[in-house]
Structure formats: C-alpha cells, structure tokens
C-alpha cells in the first residue's frame, strides 16, 4: 500500500525585498513514493530542501507546484485530518509546551487528538518505559536536556498511534549513547507496529542503522533513490582507517587499502565502504608497530559530492 506519493513536487521562496527580490527554488520537481512499513532516509547537504519537503508532506507548507498525497490526503488542504495519522519530530525544536511539565503536555495531546484514554495510557506507559522518561514526567520541558526533550517529543508524536513518523534530524546534537538508544527504539517501533518512517539526517550512521532505502536530494533535486549499498557504490564512498604508528614510516602498503595521507606518525588509509575493516587492520598490525587505530565513516556530504562530480 502506498502511503506517500509525491509527483513533481516544487516549492519556491521569495527572498529579499523590493528591487533585490528574487525567487529561490528550494524543492525542484521531486518525485517518489513510499510504501507502508518502509524506513526511508531522506538525505542531502544543508539547504538541499530536506526540511522543506518534510514540511510540505506534513501540511506545514503549501507546495508551489506538483502533486502530493500522504495517507490518501492532500496535506495542506486536509491538514487536521492528516495530523491524526502522522507523527512529526523536529530535532532542533520542540512541539511540546515549553513551560509545562511533560505529563501535562501529554495529557493535553490526548484531548486534542481525542485518543481513547485507555489507548493513551497504554501507549504512554509503553513509550515512557522504552525511552526511559519515567523520572522526567513532572519536569517542565524547558528544563530538559536536548536528549531528554527529544525523547519527550518522540513520545508526544507517537501517542495517537500515527501510521507514519516523520523525523527531521532526530539525532542532531545527541551524544553517542543517546543516538544508539534512539535508533534502537525506532527499529523496534517499525518492527512491532509497522510504523512507516521517513527521516532526514546528516548522520550516515542513522541511515545505516535504520534505512533500507535512501533518497538523496541536492539543490532541490532528487539525485538518487535506492538502497544504501548502491549509494555507496555509485558515490564511490570510502571509509578511512586512521593509523597512529609508534614511529614515522613511509606510506603503509597493505592489500585492499590505499594510503591517502601521511602526517608524521599518523597515516590515513581509505578502503571501500562495503569491505570489512578486519583484514586491513590485521595486515597493518602485523607489519607495523601500531599505537592506535580508528575508523572514520564516510561523510554524507562527501558521498554526495562524489556522486555529483561525475
């Protein structure tokens, strides 16, 4: 079943005033469709049009052109109907009431969405447990840390059992542990409830952990739509092994990796993203005196740049 259908979607903004007025195309004729139960990453560099797309899909922004259907509804015209069927989380801002304790915000949401009290209680108990929010229910939102607030926002977005969950940069600013927990939670949600997930992110690890499919947007245009592995292949993306040797040495030479850069005892080796790091690490360790090793994941911006430059 198709839950989201986008055809030639377009959004322009007018910037500047008076004579300096000009039109900027934020989203340019983007088309895609998403099936129920999919987990899709919507990625691209800053200002590529990710958030603008999400805002159109959720009914916040009126499209300038094209066709758009979410859960069988026209988002901007049937905004309130759509609101009952989707959940939305913005990483950088909260939709909760700043001055109120989480508990009160949740209680009001139950009334606004007219969720049955029993369902509400069940959901609340389950999500609060899963996201470990029990001790924070009486804290005003403004006093929560970013990670705590994010979890609160996610609970708020899920209490009315939405079919689709939109997440705009959900892991931005979170520490590694919080990121991991959040990803785990989202995976569980998709597996147990079949909730469709669409997320924008800067963090390739979000995508790797969650999404079987990625749509890449750049300068308002969708430049790639497919599996993550294909993106890496097409983008020729590489991971980097950073080797700190005990002593300075000539460029390391091991099979399966090429040395990109040498700076004193530190060397950077790149290898394909889909290859395992283990044999390379083993080969390096066997041939050299290694002080420290670390692996850098490919940067999404690099992949996209690569995708474009060819």
């Amino acid at each position, binding site marked *: 079943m198709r839950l989201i259908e986008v055809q030639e979607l377009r959004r322009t903004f007018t910037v500047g005033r008076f004579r300096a007025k000009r039109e900027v195309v934020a989203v340019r004729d983007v088309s895609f469709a998403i099936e129920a139960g999919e987990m899709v990453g919507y990625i691209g560099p800053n200002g590529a049009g990710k958030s603008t797309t999400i805002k159109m899909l959720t009914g916040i922004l009126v499209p300038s052109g094209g066709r758009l259907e979410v859960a069988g509804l026209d988002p901007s015209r049937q905004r309130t109907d759509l609101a009952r069927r989707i959940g939305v989380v913005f990483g950088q*801002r909260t939709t909760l009431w700043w001055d109120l304790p989480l508990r009160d915000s949740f209680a009001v949401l139950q009334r606004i969405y007219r969720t049955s009290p029993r369902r509400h209680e069940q959901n609340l108990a389950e999500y609060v447990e899963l996201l470990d929010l029990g001790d924070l229910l009486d804290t005003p939102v403004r006093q929560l840390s970013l990670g705590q607030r994010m979890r609160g926002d996610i609970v708020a977005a899920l209490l009315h059992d939405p079919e689709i969950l939109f997440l705009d940069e959900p892991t931005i600013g979170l520490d590694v542990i919080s990121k991991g927990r959040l990803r785990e939670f989202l995976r569980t949600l998709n597996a147990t409830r079949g909730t469709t997930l669409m997320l924008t992110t800067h963090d390739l690890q979000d995508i790797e952990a969650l999404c079987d499919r990625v749509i890449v947007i750049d300068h308002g245009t969708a430049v790639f739509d497919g599996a993550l592995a294909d993106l890496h292949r097409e983008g020729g993306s590489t991971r980097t092994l950073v080797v700190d040797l005990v002593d300075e040495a000539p460029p390391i030479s091991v099979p399966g990796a090429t040395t990109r850069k040498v700076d004193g005892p530190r060397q950077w080796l790149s290898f394909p993203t889909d290859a395992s790091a283990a044999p390379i690490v083993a080969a390096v360790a066997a041939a050299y005196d290694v002080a420290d090793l670390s692996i850098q994941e490919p940067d999404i911006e690099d992949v996209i740049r690569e995708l474009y430059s060819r």
Partner: protein
Amino acid sequence: MADQATGVIGVSARGYRDIARMWVKAALAYPASFWMMAASQFFLTLLDFVGIWIMFHTIDSLGGFDLTEIAFLYGATAFGIGVADLLGGQVERLGELIRMGRLDGMLLKPLPLLVQVCADQFALRRVARITQALVMLGVASYWVDWTPAKVGLTLVMLVSGSVIFLSIFVVFGCVQFWTVDASEVANAFTYGGNTMTQYPLTVFPKQVVTALTYLVPLAFVNWYPSLYILDRADPYGFPEWLRYASPIAAVALVAVTAVVWRAGVRHYESTGS
C-alpha cells in the same frame, strides 16, 4: 455542510477549552504572580478612566458629553476589548510563534490553527479587565433611561463589540505572516481603537469618524449603539440606522478576517529550510 460547520465549531471550542485549561493550571502554579498581574490589569484599565476623571476636574463636558456618558462609552469599549483580548489577544504574538518555530508545531495538531494561536498562553487574569468594564457599565447605567429596547441593544453592542475587537486583533495580527516583527502595527488599531472609543467620537474630525464607520468599523463597538441608548442625536449626522448596525459590521469584519487569515496561512513560509 451545516453539520460539518457545527462539527468544526464544536471541535474548536473543545480544543480551545482544553488548551486554555492547561495554561490556567500552569499560571496558578505561581499564585502570587497571578494575583499581582490580575490586580494590576484591573487597575491599569481603570486608571485610563481615572485619567478622564482628572480631565473632568478642569472641564464639565468633553466633545459635548458629560462624565457619566463617557463612563458608559468607556465601559462598553473596555468590555469589548477585554473579551477580545482574553479570547484572542495572543494573536499579537504570532510573529514570535513563527520565529520560534512553534507555529509549525501547531500546524501539526488536529485543531484549527487560529484556535491554537488564540488559546496559547491563555491568561485568565484578563478577566480582571472585563470585570472592571462591567463595574464601569453598571455605575454608568444609573444615569441611563432604560427601556427594554435599550437593554437589548446594549447586549447586542457588547457582543458585537467583542467580535469586532477580536477580528481586529486577528486581521492586523496577520500582518506578521508577511513581516514577522511588525506586531506593533496591530496595536494602533486594537489599543488605539480602544483609546479612541473611550471618548465621544465628536472630539475627532469627521473624516476620522467616517473611517471608523466604513473602513475599520470601530465606531460600532460603542459609539453608534450608545447614541441610541443615551438618547443623543448624531452630532455628525450619519444615517440613523447605523445605531442598530453593529452586528452587520461585526459579521462583515469577520468575513474579511477569515479571508485575510486564510491568505496568511497559505502564505506562511516557515523559518529555516
């Protein structure tokens, strides 16, 4: 169609109540602040009248009206803006909601946007101003020759006045959809309108009164119906039927407001990308 309309109104009223109740609860968490603000609201609006009363130490009539008549005009407009401010004064802060991205959050909830904007930070303390207006009206009514028709027209005036002020709050608040930090423009019409209608419109040039009749219908908040209630001839000689026309003005203004609000929402550009 009619069913659908009543459905929307029901949902809106319920939603408004739910959100408002939450804010009242939050405000009462600081009872000292709440009462201090309620009391100062009461006195603040009362002091405007004290100002007029001080003026009357040097004069016996202003624009051909005496103090008791001005008290009636004053009470009527204070009631109108009091109710409007209680129910929808928050529209003033639309620009702030846009800047903080909170409007996006509201657009994601299954309630009409206007309801959420108006109910945001609902402040029960504003009832103080309405109380003050009613006290003023009560006192002033001692000097009115009451008839059933006048009582009826007074009620119509108070309801229409509230609706007119509420519409003006919204319609000028919409400016912020286009220019986020221009919230003060609305003050010229809301609080400015309130200040103007505290006085008999005879103190203003006729062109101003014409504008307040046909352009920004603030004269219907209290002036025209009060001419009937106070048994006064219209010093400017405007048509007599205007005295009963407050509801028409209110409905017309609501229609204009609805169009402007819709245009504003569709123009909304959300911040960031």
